[in-house]
Each structure stands twice: as structure tokens, then as C-alpha cells.
């Protein structure tokens, strides 16, 4: 049905284009000069039909399911939904929906069958209504637009105004996305903090989100203190940065000052490959090669290494970040004015001395900015740690131990079916909010440092 609506819309929009263009051509054939080219008369009709009706269809598609579900639930006979939690109501709705697909388990009660029938008829009715509305609305717009065709009508300006509006709308999508992220995180986190006090979350040292799902289930009470989780993130991030920073910086120094052009031409793209490899591949690499190797080495040395040690996840993450840091440092070193370099060399300093004592200190702000951006990446990196790091949150800074991270907890809490009414699910959004704030803060700081440093030499 939706496809039909789109087809009707496309057909009417195109016919509007042809209709208005031929009308304008007819005026021109009559010897009158039109203000705009006939093509713009057609384009104006096309856009006038297409844009509003397309919006109508999209709004319909977004609202259809929630509105109809609400109507079905609201129309259930009195009493059946008494004493039900939101999750149970969802379950009833899911049962009714599966009945409409012909999947029944046993004999459902009559009220469910009736509701299923109502659901089916509502859907069919809504779709039919939508197609009729689309056709009628398009036709009405077409009618009015056709009447506007005249020699004096400024069709080009009118069409360009619509295109301009569309472009503005496109750029507002970026703002909408940010607003969506912030609103979704804040709203769900707020609901979480209604169940778990903010102080418990921020300063608690126990993270045990396995709360009972049924009332009579034997399980831990659940504790939502994020300190062990963020500590684990810090441990893994530190390991990653300890590997990525020296290797990345040395690579940049060599490439920038010493490497012949031919070497540079080979090394740079190969390093880019490292950053182009999807993180799920790194995660598999960590569990397939790195973690067993570390455990084997540990066993040889007589050190107990956990099977998902922070070293494996952090180390592999460090490898991933090498090209990130090296390219940032390379750019920062290149941006140092040539006069500084030439001056140093002219005084008799070797190239190494020039690099370490002149160029590197001058480039420090840019390099620090790059490292900060890498830190923000390390904190937000998900797949490597989901696959290679642990699940249990511990207050430890020993990198040989298994630790967990913010992103691991978000994914494990939300994987599988989720209900939005228990703290276990909502805790993921609280963690997500903290992650968002943290990475955003680091990014803004890093960009500010980089920008300030650029101004010095400009």
C-alpha cells in the first residue's frame, strides 16, 4: 500500500511537471514572453506536489504503528489489563499481533481474537485512507498550481525557494540528530535516575546489573555504581595509549624528517589500512591470536594472565590507533613554519636535534590535540572490547586481570530483547550519557587546543 502511495505521488508529480510546462509553452507559442522558462514552471509544479505529500506519507509511516497499537490497547474490554505492568501490556500486544499473522499458541481468549481482528481492519483501513489522502492532496495541489501558470508568474524564484528550503532542511538534519541523541540519552537516563539515585551511580563501587526479572526470582539485588566500569575503561585505554602513542609519534617523526619520498609513499597508505580495518576484525584478532599468545607467555613466565586480559583488548586497540596518532602528529610537524626548521639546521644542529628540540616542541599542541582525540576514540571503541574484554566489573588497575568497559556494559545490557521499564536496560542509557559527555568534552578540548595552536603561526 505504501508503495502504491509513492507510485501515485510520483505519477501525479511528473504529470504536474508536464502539465505546467506545456501550459507555459502554450503561452509562449501564443507570442507572449513568459517571465520564467517553461522548465521552471514544470519544476515548480513537481516540487509543490512532491514535497508536502512526501512529508505526509513519512509522518503517516512513523505514526501508524504507535497510534494503531494505542487504539487496540485502548479498545480492549475493561478489566483485562488491570494490574498489568507496562511490560505485560507489551506482551499482550505482541500476542495480538502474532494472532494477526496466524501464529496462535493454544486457543487465545475471545477478547484477543476480537482485538486481532480490530488490528487487521485498522491497518487495512489506515492504509486505504492514506492512499486516498495522498491521491486527493496531490490532485488538489496540482489543480491550484496549474492555475498559477501565467506569463507574469515568477516560477523560477518560486521553485528555487522550495529548493532552498529543502537544502536548509537537509542541514538541519545534523542538528536534529544531535538533539535526538541528547534527548534520548537524557530522557532514558532520567528515568534510570528515578529508580537509582544519582549518587549511587556516580560514586558506587559495585556494578552488578543482574537484577531479578520476575518478582520471585532469586538473584542479586543489583548495584549500579559506575566507578569499576569507568576504571576498567581507563585501564584498557591506558594500555592502548601506551602502545599507540610512542609507535605513532616515532612513525610520524621518521616519516616527517628522515624518510625518503618513496618510503613515505608506501608507508602512509599501508598505515591507513590499519585504520580502515573494521573493529570487529580487530576484536576477532584479539581473541584468536593476541589473548592466547599473552596467556601462553604468562604461563611460561609463571604469571597468571586472565583469559580476557585488559592487555589483549588494550594492545589491539593501540594498534588500531597508531595511524590516527601518526597522521595527526605528521600534520602538526608539517605545519611548523619552515623558517624554524631552516634556522635550526643553519646553526649546525643535526636533523635529529632539529626534530626533537625545535620542531617537536613547536608542534606539541597539535600533537596533544591528536592524542586527546585518540583517547576519546579509545573510550568510545566498542567491538574490540566487547569481544576481547571481560564482563565482570572489578575495582582493579591490574592490566593482567579481566576488566570491563562502559561500552561493553552498554552492549551486554541491551543485547537481546529489551524492556524499557527496568533499571537494567535504562542503566545502559545512563552509561551512554556519561560516555557521550566524556567523549564530547575531550573532543571539544582537543579541537580547542589544535585551533589555538594554529593561530600562533597564522
Amino acid at each position, binding site marked *: 500500500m505504501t508503495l502504491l502511495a509513492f507510485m501515485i505521488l510520483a505519477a501525479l508529480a511528473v504529470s504536474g511537471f508536464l502539465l505546467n510546462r506545456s501550459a507555459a509553452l502554450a503561452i509562449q507559442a501564443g507570442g507572449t514572453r513568459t517571465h520564467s522558462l517553461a522548465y521552471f514552471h514544470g519544476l515548480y509544479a513537481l516540487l509543490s506536489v512532491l514535497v508536502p505529500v512526501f512529508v505526509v506519507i513519512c509522518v503517516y509511516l512513523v505514526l501508524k504503528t504507535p497510534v494503531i497499537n494505542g487504539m487496540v490497547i485502548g479498545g480492549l474490554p475493561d478489566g483485562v489489563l488491570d494490574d498489568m505492568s507496562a511490560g505485560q501490556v507489551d506482551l499482550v500486544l505482541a500476542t495480538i499481533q502474532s494472532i494477526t499473522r496466524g501464529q496462535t499458541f493454544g486457543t487465545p481468549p475471545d477478547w484477543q481474537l476480537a482485538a486481532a481482528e480490530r488490528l487487521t481492519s485498522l491497518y487495512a483501513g489506515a492504509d486505504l485512507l492514506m492512499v486516498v489522502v495522498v491521491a486527493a492532496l496531490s490532485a488538489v495541489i496540482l489543480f491550484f498550481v496549474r492555475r498559477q501558470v501565467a506569463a507574469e508568474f515568477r516560477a523560477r524564484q518560486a521553485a528555487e525557494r522550495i529548493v532552498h528550503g529543502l537544502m536548509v532542511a537537509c542541514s538541519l538534519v545534523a542538528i536534529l540528530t544531535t538533539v535526538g541523541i541528547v534527548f534520548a540519552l537524557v530522557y532514558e537516563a532520567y528515568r534510570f535516575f528515578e529508580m537509582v539515585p544519582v549518587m549511587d551511580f556516580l560514586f558506587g563501587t559495585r556494578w552488578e546489573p543482574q537484577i531479578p526479572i520476575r518478582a520471585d526470582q532469586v538473584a542479586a539485588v543489583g548495584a549500579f555504581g559506575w566507578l569499576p566500569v569507568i576504571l576498567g575503561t581507563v585501564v584498557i585505554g591506558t594500555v592502548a595509549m601506551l602502545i599507540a602513542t610512542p609507535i605513532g609519534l616515532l612513525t610520524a617523526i621518521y616519516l616527517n624528517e628522515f624518510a625518503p619520498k618513496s618510503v613515505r609513499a608506501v608507508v602512509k597508505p599501508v598505515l591507513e589500512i590499519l585504520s580502515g580495518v573494521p*573493529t570487529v576484525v580487530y576484536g576477532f584478532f584479539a581473541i584468536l591470536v593476541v589473548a592466547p599468545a599473552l596467556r601462553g607467555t604468562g604461563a611460561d613466565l609463571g604469571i597468571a594472565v586472565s583469559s580476557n586480559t585488559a592487555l589483549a583488548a588494550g594492545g589491539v586497540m593501540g594498534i588500531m590507533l597508531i595511524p590516527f596518532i601518526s597522521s595527526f602528529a605528521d600534520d602538526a610537524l608539517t605545519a611548523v613554519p619552515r623558517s624554524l626548521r631552516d634556522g635550526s639546521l643553519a646553526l649546525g644542529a643535526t636533523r635529529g636535534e632539529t626534530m626533537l628540540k625545535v620542531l617537536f616542541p613547536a608542534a606539541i599542541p597539535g600533537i596533544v590535540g591528536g592524542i586527546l582525540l585518540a583517547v576519546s576514540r579509545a573510550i568510545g571503541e566498542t*567491538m574490540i572490547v566487547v569481544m576481547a574484554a571481560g564482563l565482570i566489573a572489578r575495582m582493579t588497575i591490574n592490566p593482567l586481570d579481566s576488566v570491563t568497559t562502559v561500552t561493553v556494559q552498554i552492549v551486554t545490557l541491551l543485547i*537481546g530483547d529489551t524492556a524499557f521499564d527496568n533499571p537494567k536496560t535504562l542503566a545502559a542509557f545512563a552509561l551512554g550519557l556519561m560516555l557521550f559527555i566524556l567523549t564530547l568534552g575531550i573532543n571539544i578540548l582537543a579541537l580547542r587546543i589544535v585551533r589555538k595552536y594554529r593561530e600562533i603561526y597564522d
Partner: protein
Amino acid sequence: MADITNSGTGGPRKSSLTESSAKIAKRKRADLILQGFGIGAILTAFTVLFILVASLVSTGYTAFVQTHVTLQVFVDPAEVAEERLPRGGFQEVLTASLLSNLPDADPESDARAVRNILSNGAQFYLRDRIVANPSLIGQTISITVPVSDPFDQLNKGNVDRATPEAQRRVNDREIGWFDALDTAGMIATPLNWGLITNADSRFPELAGLRGALVGTFWALLTCFLISFPIGIGAAIYLEEFAPKNKLSDFIEVNINNLAAVPSVVFGLLALAVFLNWFGLPRSAPFVGGLTLALMTMPTIIIATRAALKAVPPSIREAALGVGASKQQVVFGHVLPLAMPGILTGTIIGLAQALGETAPLLLIGMNAFITSAASSPFDASTALPTQIFIWADSPERGFVSRTSAAILVLLGFLVLMNGMAIYLRNKFERRW
């Protein structure tokens, strides 16, 4: 003169540029050491990259072939009757054929063990053939079916026959049977098309990437259809039309920040907004594509703006000079010239989206689904989430499948990036 010639012997002296001294040697050594460290760092990175690729290839290449056994099967009418199709004792028929080739196996007590040589899905191969052509009942037909994972691993040499029997997944008798089939010429290891044409399965020898490839296709298509027009529209507005005001600055800052938001946060957005509020279906590639579109958009916007900026102002001025409107200039002249750069950026953005996993996990694209999606609204997996699922599976056969799936993913990435580089080299214009 005397001073200079004597300078080697007495008093503190200043170093000379022309004479080598211990101090200069030391400084040069320091230079070399720094260079050595740099080369060492690069070599470290290269070594890791090499190990990464080598480990994937060495574990993954075996999954590109699959051990099959070719059986002469008598389709016994007592087991398979036309009127009961598609039900029937296909497994029994296959087992009987195997037993007839293994004289030392007892038809009663060993039937189960012998049957386990074949993949659990072997019976469906036979069933599909008989259902398609019921006249085969009562005849002896030749059919090639995959063997089960332990024997597949045995054939590929992943089972060390020297290890004690108790620690192997196949015992000595089973190895004997398999060798007997092998010497009879019934075992073959052809190219494993099932890896591409089969959907996911619990049995590694049957599991394939079809569902994942289809899901990824729908998701990337959705992502492209949404992010490409919106990204270009936003870029054109910001680059060519936007007034210099607070709103434009705010949009710019927003786009740059979005590019740095962790991918898992986009997953949270999709879960809360698309699934929970809008009620879009779980695990659907459409929702995945929508989420990926939001992540790809900043890349496309940034690439498009760079491409628009690279078009020289003389083009704009010439078009304006002959009376074109501002929009006619942009859409008729600047945009076509910038298209190669825009397409390059878009392909690179889509290649990034292809490898994204975390947001897809949160919207449930890691479900176990044994059929390919027929529309973008059906539940499906995607290539990276399929890798994640297989990497989590305990069976030995899934290790090589995971590596093989990764090699397929990397192959697509190389292809897309190669295409982007080709486009850039072919159409890039220097003004």
C-alpha cells in the same frame, strides 16, 4: 695559525664542523638512534598488520573449500513414499548407503555413529531433490552432500591423528571409516559455494553468508539513499548559500561533533528513537541503514564541501556572468564538476558504514536467522554482525568460517576503496 694547529692538544676547545670529534660522532649516533626507533616503530606496525592478515588467511582459507561425500543412494520406497513427501526417511536412506560402503560397521549398533559422518543438513539436500522429481523414488541416484564438521576438520588436517583418542572429536574407528570412504574416491573438497549461497545455520558445515550479505545490501542501500541526497543538500547549503551567522556556525560545529561521537551512542539513539518511540521493526536492515546513514552523513558532508571548494571561482563567475541564477550555477555547473570528489567521499563513507558493528548489535541485527531477508523490513543480520555471531560460536568449524567471513568483508572493503581511488584518479581535475 698556531692556535688552530695546536687546538687538538691544549685547553677546552669548541667543536668544528669540518673536523670529526667524539662529540660530533655522539650527536650523529643520536641521530641514527632516533632514525632506528622510527624505523622500528614502522616495522612494528607492519609486523602486526602482517600477523593480522596472515592469521586470518591461515585460519580462513580452509572455509573456502568444504569436504563433500558423493554417495550412490538407493531411494528405498519403504522409507520414502511419494504421498508422504516432503516427509520421509531421508536420513535412513543416506545412512544405508553409507553402511553399504563400510563393511566393518555394524548396521544396528553403528548406525548412529555412521550417520554422524554426514552433515545434519545432508538429508535436506536429498529431500529437495526428491521433492523436485518424485520419479527418483525406487532408483539409485548419485548425490553429493557435505560431511559434518568433525570430519571436515579431519579432512582439512585440523585434527592431529597422533593425539590420544579421548581428546579428539573423532575416534579411531570413525577415522577408519572416513579413510575407507576416502580411498574409495567418494570424498572430495570442492570450492565451498555454500559459504555465499547458504544462510546461517547452527552447523558450521552448512552455515553461509547469504543472509548477512543480503542484510548488508539492504542496509547499505538504505544508508546510501538517505545519506547521499541529504548530505549533498546540506553541504551545498553550507558551502554555497548559508549566510555567515550563528545558526550556520552551530550546524558546522554539530556536524564536526557528530563525526566524533562513538558509534555505540548512535546505536542507543536508534534503539530509543527508531525502535522504542517510532515502533520500527527490530533487527530490520532498514533501521540499520537509517542509523548508518546518520553516521555516514558527516563524512559525505565534509567530502562534498571539500569537492565544492575545489571548483575554481572562475566557473561560478562565468556562469553568473551569462545570466544564470545562483542555483543554476551550483546545480548546472559546480555540482557536476564536483561529482567525482563527492562520489569518492561517499564510497569511503559507505565502506566505513559496511564495517560498523556496534550500532547494529543494539538494534538486534545479531539474531539467529536462517533465511535471507526478502525486504529491508525483515529481520536479518549484516556481514559484521554475522562475524560477531560466528566468533562467539564454540564449534571449531566456526573459527575458520569467521576468518573466511572477515576475508569476504575485507574483500568488499578493498573493492570499495579501490573504486574510490580509481574514481579519484580517473576524474580528478587539476585546475
